[in-house]
């Protein structure tokens, strides 16, 4: 599951990858005609809409691909870098950049592509960029305050608006396709030699139609998490997919035994988990299970995975989800967390034994209570065995 930085791709390899990605980026920018300032500026005068077409097609393609990879579970959408929003600085910065665009005829990426093929004005633009950063750097103490205002964090646009990601994607694709058609109409009236007159109209119509169809699919597809959870939560699915159950005594026995091939996944809330942290347990949520952070833990095949939750059914849903995701040996604590808490982690007196066998069981339980308490205290002393927080992906400009 992507992304592969930093767990699979090392920092060094990532730099090599950056160079290769840059080569592809620069090649496409130049092929698109973004190495020409007159073409870029043409957007703002209605004589050439190349920028609009390339830019929105690229954004739509990447957005659609990211949503689909996420939907099919190939990309962990919670792990990718989402540039945080500083609302007013973004607006003011964007306005300043827009003026820079119309005066300079480039943006930073396109200026580098243009500089590469010998455009002297593009080199001046690049030098200007460095000068601008230096000027900003010197004025930073004055601007710092404003620069940090209206920080909203890494918010997603569909949350800002209040629609589903799929619906937003659909709307964006629809608007883009309409804008492409409208601007072609304008361009052919403003510019007699409009490049659009050379396009393959039929092919473009098919592509536009296909894009809208994909958009509709995005709008109606539930996201992967919702779909998976709905499936494993349905009684029919649960009836036909039995999950091995483990009762509190067996679990306690394995814990006392310190079985190394045991892992407990605790679905309770953070506070409950902190109040009583079972040995060999980590706290997970259903969301975590769809992410990649927990993947190496869940993927250990020989390990017996016991899902525990306040209610047995909640644990069952998680265990079914784990099996559905291809993780093996998932089982569920029978009777919910209450059973093991009552039997092994309370001061509640155990019932008086009726015969010799019951007395032995009672003695074992009392021993187990003490033993488990010691294990928990020990773990607390060493610092609780929380899953390590992984390195955040850096990004942005």
């Amino acid at each position, binding site marked *: 599951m992507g*992304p592969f*930085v930093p767990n699979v791709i090392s920092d060094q390899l990532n730099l090599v990858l950056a160079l290769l990605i*840059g080569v592809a*980026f*620069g*090649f*496409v920018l*130049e092929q*698109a005609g973004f*190495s020409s300032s007159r073409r870029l500026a043409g957007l703002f005068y209605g004589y050439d*809409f190349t920028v609009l*077409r*390339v*830019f929105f*097609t690229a*954004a*739509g393609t990447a*957005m659609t*691909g990211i949503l689909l990879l996420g939907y099919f579970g*190939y990309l962990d959408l919670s792990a*990718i*870098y*989402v540039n*945080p*929003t500083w609302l007013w*600085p*973004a607006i003011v910065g*964007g*306005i*300043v950049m*827009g*003026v*820079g*665009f119309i005066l*300079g005829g480039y943006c930073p*990426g*396109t200026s*580098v*592509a243009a500089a590469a*093929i*010998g*455009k002297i004005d*593009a080199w*001046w633009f*690049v030098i*200007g960029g*460095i000068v601008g*950063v*230096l000027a900003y*750097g*010197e004025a*930073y103490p004055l601007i710092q305050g404003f620069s940090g205002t209206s920080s*909203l964090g890494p*918010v*997603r646009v569909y949350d800002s608006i209040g629609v589903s990601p799929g619906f937003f994607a659909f709307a964006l694709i629809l608007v883009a396709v309409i804008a492409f058609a409208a601007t072609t109409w304008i361009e052919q009236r403003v510019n007699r030699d409009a*490049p659009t007159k050379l396009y*393959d109209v039929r092919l473009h119509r098919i592509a536009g139609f296909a894009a809208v169809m994909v958009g509709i699919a995005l709008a109606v597809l539930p996201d992967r998490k919702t779909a998976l959870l709905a499936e494993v939560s349905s009684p029919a699915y649960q009836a036909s997919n039995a999950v091995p159950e483990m009762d509190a005594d067996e679990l306690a026995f394995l814990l006392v035994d310190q079985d190394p091939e045991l892992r407990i996944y605790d679905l309770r809330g953070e506070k409950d988990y902190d109040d009583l942290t079972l040995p060999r347990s980590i706290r997970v949520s259903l969301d975590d299970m769809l992410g990649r952070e927990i993947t190496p833990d869940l993927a250990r095949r020989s390990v017996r995975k016991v899902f525990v939750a306040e209610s047995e059914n909640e644990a069952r849903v998680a265990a079914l989800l784990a099996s559905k995701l291809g993780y093996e040996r998932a089982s569920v604590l029978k009777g919910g967390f209450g059973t093991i808490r009552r039997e092994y982690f309370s001061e509640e007196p155990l019932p008086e034994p009726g015969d010799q066998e019951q007395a032995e069981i009672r003695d074992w339980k009392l021993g187990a209570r003490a033993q488990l308490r010691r294990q928990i205290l020990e773990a607390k002393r060493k610092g609780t065995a929380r899953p390590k927080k992984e390195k955040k992906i*850096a990004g*942005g*400009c």
Partner: protein
Amino acid sequence: MPDKSASTPSRYMDPYLAGFLLGLVLLATVFLTGRGLGASGAIKDAAVAATDLVAPRHAQTAPFFRPYFEPGKEHPLKSWLVFEVAGVLIGGFLSGLLSNRLKVTTESGPRVAAPQRWIFALLGGALFGIGAQLARGCTSGAALSGMAVLSTAGFVTMLAIFGSGFAFAYFARRLWL
């Protein structure tokens, strides 16, 4: 029909095909590395490195540059975006070579002489350098990559850049028309 002899530049790629390919490059970037494309960040790194070269003490004390020189930080030029932008230079060059567009020249509007064009390019670049710091990215890093991951910042920045470009186009018409 365009002349197809070796010395004339080839036609540009169909913009939708180019956009689709650019989208695939961006998608591959996000899929592999978890981050998007960028450009202004590399310019910032270059500016920081230049400051460090010319005035190391200033670079290490000024609040804007200081974070680059905290212990454990790599050299500002050893950054992902610097390598990526170096790739853009190579990729742009290869494309120009392939399509017969390598030519040392200044491109400007019909009524603008080269030196005037250079001044406005410098000015435009400087405004981009400033604006990209406020918006935490430029057209590639904030707008395009931001839109691909559906970040609010991406859409806000994109609307502000293009909106402002259209709003001010009238005043700059002498440069291009």
